[in-house]
């Protein structure tokens, strides 16, 4: 046995349902050796990593969390395509011992593919807390599969799991007599009949019988593939047979659950009934329509409090000590032509600065996010807000990203990954830029204060409410006219609450931050450089630059909103970062920040100031947000759409507001 596996590299796939702690197992196995990317052609995250064990190198692939292997979602299709097409050497099914009944369903499906299978029975401690006794030996004997009890959150059982993988690999494929589910003669007859209508060429690379079963189960992807490959006559007879046996899907699933129930009878003792679990007790409050909303509000306040009290000071520090000081250093001490200094100071350093100053806030949001996911709260927040979100075509889970958007749109857009319906996710991404972030609110507050005196607070709040109304209207429009596809109903598991694992939260925060820098950083940097060039070319003076020409070119449009070319340029510059509006205005009006308020008063009337607030709050998202939209939707179509839509929306609304306000 040992000679055979000398210096071998094998592939191990981790399969499992959501909420089984599969990613924790993966993180424990691979640590920082992991690589995060995307599955080819999909927006679903792909994680791979390496474990070395004496002579054996294991490439671990973390499959997306799935309840079954029928392609009801992109995740399920990826998982089963990987298992069939890539043929991993060993498959590890990670199960949650506390909801074994649900998780064994996936095992039933995995057995049908006859891989080398090892079961990692995770969360043994949680199961015990719930008063469930799982007889690991009996389960292993019944299934004829190695079952390794582990507690991933406490790092227990991982070595045993690796040993089991190695041992399983040493066995020739198919040597274990896996106990396939018996579907009974009648169902088997139906499956056989469908298989007869197929041939291997049609079903490749999928096994024929398996394909037949998936057709009966109503798997849309397999159906499309087969119907595409089959001759007309063949496909029509197949289709009518499948239609006749429409109920087979239900029968097959029911039989699988009957198999699961039988396994359960042998291996698990249920907890005493009278006992109400801690999760159920918390949920009575946390999912209640009133107290649940109150708790959600409290949680959000805590997150924002944390971000503002820790993140903002760090952000300020970075800005002053790193960005501004290197800015000053370059301008004062570097012996180079003006344009080189300008490019370095105003283009590159401010671009890098934008990325850099984002990081503390982003990390905090990511950490808060990972914490809520790990504890199990996100699903509850989704439950409480689902009704309202649903009316906008969104998912309950949309609420958290949207609310995070008030802090910064960027983590909000990255945070939409928790939404499993692709359609709701896209809608959420498209609506997020209409949430006024802190930077926009800062601009609004300052300008409102300059013009509206005591009423400034009401004007500011009014503008924010206005922006949210626009969001709701946009949501309704997009839901009905722009984004195609089926409305997605809420159907999700609420995991048991459990204590957060700091190691996992740290790792997730780190991964997300690195991913943001890699994906969005380059776009932000290049746009900063381009905007700087526009403000510099042709002769180094912003007042006569290309940027000002653009501003002057836009002046007729600006006049409709009561805005001069300086205001238009200030607006354009907010594309880099929303707070740039103020800085640009400062430069353009030649004065320093102190005199800006006075300068503004000479350029704007209250009506045009109001129009400016409207256009500012609805204007195209900042470049970091655009970059995030691009990286999350994997196409330029949606970021460009967002830019165009918000450009039109902001101008139209500002013109309307200005024209009405002028009459008053």
């Amino acid at each position, binding site marked *: 046995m040992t000679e055979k596996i000398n210096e071998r590299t094998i592939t191990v796939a981790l399969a499992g349902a959501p909420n089984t702690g599969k990613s924790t197992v993966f993180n424990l196995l691979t640590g920082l050796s992991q690589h995060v990317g995307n599955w080819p052609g999909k927006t679903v995250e792909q994680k791979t990593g390496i474990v070395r064990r004496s002579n054996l190198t294991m490439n671990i692939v973390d499959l997306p969390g799935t309840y079954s292997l029928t392609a009801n979602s992109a995740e399920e299709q990826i998982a089963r395509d990987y298992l069939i097409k890539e043929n991993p050497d060993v498959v590890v099914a990670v199960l949650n011992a506390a909801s074994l009944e649900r998780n064994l369903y996936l095992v039933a499906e995995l057995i049908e593919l006859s891989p080398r299978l090892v079961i990692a029975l995770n969360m043994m401690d949680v199961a015990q807390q719930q008063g469930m006794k799982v007889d690991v030996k009996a389960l292993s004997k019944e299934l004829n599969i190695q079952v390794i009890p582990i507690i991933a959150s406490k790092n227990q059982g991982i070595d045993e799991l690796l040993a089991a993988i190695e041992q399983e690999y040493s066995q020739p494929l198919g040597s274990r007599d896996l106990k396939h589910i018996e579907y009974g003669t009648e169902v088997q007859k139906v499956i056989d009949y469908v298989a007869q209508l197929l041939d291997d060429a049609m079903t490749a690379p999928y096994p024929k019988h398996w394909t037949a079963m998936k057709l009966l189960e109503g798997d849309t992807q397999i159906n499309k593939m087969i119907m595409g490959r089959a001759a007309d006559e063949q496909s029509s007879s197949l289709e009518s047979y499948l239609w006749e046996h429409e109920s087979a899907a239900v029968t097959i699933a029911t039989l699988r659950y009957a198999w699961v129930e039988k396994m359960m009878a042998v291996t698990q003792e249920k907890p005493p009934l009278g006992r109400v679990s801690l999760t159920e007790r918390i*949920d009575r409050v946390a999912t*209640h329509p009133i107290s649940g909303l109150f708790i959600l509000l409290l949680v959000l306040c805590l997150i924002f409090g944390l971000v503002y009290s820790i993140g903002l000071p760090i952000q300020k520090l970075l800005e002053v000590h790193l960005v501004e000081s290197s800015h000053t250093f370059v301008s004062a001490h570097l012996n180079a032509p003006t344009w080189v200094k300008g490019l370095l100071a105003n283009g590159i350093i401010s671009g890098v600065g934008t990325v850099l100053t984002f990081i503390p806030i982003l990390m905090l949001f990511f950490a808060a996010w990972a914490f809520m996911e790990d504890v199990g709260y996100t*699903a509850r927040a989704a439950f409480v807000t689902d009704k309202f979100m649903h009316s906008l075509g969104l998912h309950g889970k949309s609420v958290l990203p949207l609310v995070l958007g008030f802090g910064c749109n960027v983590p909000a857009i990255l945070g939409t990954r928790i939404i499993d319906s692709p359609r709701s996710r896209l809608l959420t991404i498209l609506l997020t830029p209409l949430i006024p972030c802190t930077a926009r609110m800062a601009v609004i507050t300052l300008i409102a204060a300059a013009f509206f005196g005591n009423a400034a607070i009401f004007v500011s709040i009014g503008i924010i409410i206005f922006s949210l109304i626009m969001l709701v209207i946009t949501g309704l429009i997009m839901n009905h006219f722009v984004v195609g596809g089926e409305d997605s109903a809420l159907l999700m598991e609420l995991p048991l609450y459990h204590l957060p694992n700091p190691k996992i939260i740290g790792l997730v925060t780190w991964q997300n931050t690195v991913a943001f820098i890699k994906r969005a950083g380059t776009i932000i940097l290049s746009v900063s450089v381009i905007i700087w060039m526009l403000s510099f070319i042709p002769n180094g003076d912003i007042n006569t630059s290309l940027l000002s020409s653009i501003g002057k070119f836009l002046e007729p449009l600006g006049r409709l909103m009561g805005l001069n070319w300086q205001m238009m340029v200030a607006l354009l510059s907010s594309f880099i970062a929303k707070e740039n509006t103020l800085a640009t205005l400062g430069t353009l009006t030649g004065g320093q920040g102190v005199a800006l308020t006075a300068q503004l008063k000479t350029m704007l009337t209250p009506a045009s100031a109001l129009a400016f607030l409207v256009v500012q709050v609805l204007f195209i998202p900042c470049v970091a947000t655009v970059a995030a939209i691009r990286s999350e939707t994997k196409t330029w179509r949606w970021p460009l759409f967002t830019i165009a839509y918000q450009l039109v929306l902001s101008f139209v609304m500002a013109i309307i507001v200005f024209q009405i306000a002028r009459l008053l």
Partner: protein
Amino acid sequence: MDSERTEEYLEAIYKEQNKGNPASTSFLARDLGVSQPAVTNMLKNLENKGLIDYKSSKGATLTDTGVEKALGVIRQHRLWERFLTDILGMKWDKVHEVACKLEHLDVPEVEERLAILLGDTDTCPHGHAIPDKDGNIKAEKAIPLINFNPLQRVNIIAIDESDSGLLRDIEKKGLKPQVIITIKKKNEDGSLEIEAGKKRIRLNTKQAEALLAESIALNKSATKEEITLSKLDAGYSGILKEYTGERNLLGRCLSLGFTPGSVVKMLENYNSGPVLVKVHDTAVALGRDLADHITVTRNGTA
């Protein structure tokens, strides 16, 4: 204790008598694990108390007082069994022995409260009827499965619980009370091939004798109220009947365990917005639209 012993005798005699024969001395000696002379002694004692009629040639039968007393013990035994499986979550092959000890507790208030706690259950986990508090018991019409013939459709009513190994084997085959089966083949030695839920199952002679069943025609199943899942109140549970919504969501519902026959317990239902249910051991949130398209039959509180 003396009364405990008495109760065990009465119980054993009742069961044997229920099968149509008086309890012989040798049967009782075997069943209770005592010597024949000891049995004879005890039976005389019981006759003196007016609990049984005893003829040494035939055996013992219970008097009316004896029956009443035996049923009281049996009631407690079966209530305790229910308590052990349903409330304490023990497996059904372990509860008989424990209940044998608990049945002698005989505190009326405990018995009364136990009955309230268990609600309207009227059988023990093995399917035997529980006598009511006035000592009435539904006559057991079920007969051993071994007596049925091929092609008959029967409903499993009860299982003889004395052999825990046998119970485990039967459980592994997926058989329990209220499972409907069809006899497919009967062998010379009495072993059977049956079909349950479209699956072929083999039963050896011993198993076929231990399973008690009723022909399906005789068994009138009460029609229960059918409602949509969204109308089930929190705390109640139902048995899933079917999903009537859009086909594209069927797969997701099935893989999350919303299969016909599954027990669904409503955890939270505020009459608007999504509902929270427990199905196959996990809490699942369902949008109201979806819950409107799943029908269940109400099953009482669980």
